[in-house]
């Protein structure tokens, strides 16, 4: 499995368990993430600490999740960017719309 979902109190945690987060599972992840936000919580944390590489399709899935969460009055926060992944957030300037944290605890407590 490339990702898992878990609840921590009222926060939905998505953990990406793949070194490459790319188009190969971005579509399914987006679909599942949107469904989970609808069913579980509009407070979302996506943990990318195992990812070494992300592409635009996966970043698009995160944007879709952020839009869904904010539409429902919540937020989607990002955790654990390795340097190459951080570089992608900077290149696309998506860091301007996501709150980014070093660890899950800080991200969860920020809600």
């Amino acid at each position, binding site marked *: 499995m490339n990702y898992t979902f878990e609840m921590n109190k009222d926060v939905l945690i998505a953990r990406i368990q793949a070194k490459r987060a790319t188009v190969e599972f971005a579509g399914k992840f987006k679909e599942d993430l949107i469904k989970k936000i609808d069913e579980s919580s509009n407070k979302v944390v996506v943990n990318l600490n195992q990812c070494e*590489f992300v*592409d635009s399709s996966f*970043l698009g899935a995160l*944007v879709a999740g952020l839009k869904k969460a904010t539409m429902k009055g919540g937020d989607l926060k990002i955790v654990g960017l390795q340097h190459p992944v951080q570089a992608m957030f900077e*290149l*696309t*300037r*998506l860091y*301007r*719309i996501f709150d980014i944290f070093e660890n899950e605890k800080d991200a969860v407590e920020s809600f």
Partner: protein
Amino acid sequence: MNRKIVLSVPADINYLATVESFAELLIKRFELSEEERTAFSRRLRITLNEAFVNVLKHTPVPENALVEIEFEIDTPELVIRFPDWGKGVAIDGCYPPYPQKLIGSDHLFLKTIDGEVHFSVESDRVLKLWFKDFAENLNPDNLLENVSEGGMGLSIIVKTMDEARFVWDEERGHYLEIRKHLGNFK
């Protein structure tokens, strides 16, 4: 010295990691410092990913087709060509070869959170892509409204590489041509 390498892979998303990994092999062909090697390898990898996905997603791929990616190493320049099965970009309903009246014109291709990808019609067969950067003037109040889930791939290629063009010719058909000058990629 001019050297050419052709990577032929099935037009199938399951070969995406193979295409990406070619960045590591290719980078060994250049004399670079460790720091330069790491930076260029990352840029090349994401470019190969986005360009390959672009071919598969946006052009009509025939069954059992192969994508023949061409790498031309003409130090200090690297040229990469990604052929596809499209007719090229339609401008005012025209596909290449474009009429004379369009040459020199500029067109908006797509918008991203921080700018716009444009193309200029360089000749009747060549569109040069470029990025109009709005980063300095972004309004933080409506960033999320303006961000789109799609369209980032091409903007990543244009930002990461030095030159990107859509080219059409009778022999090869349509392809994306990307150039990187290795002297200034930092």
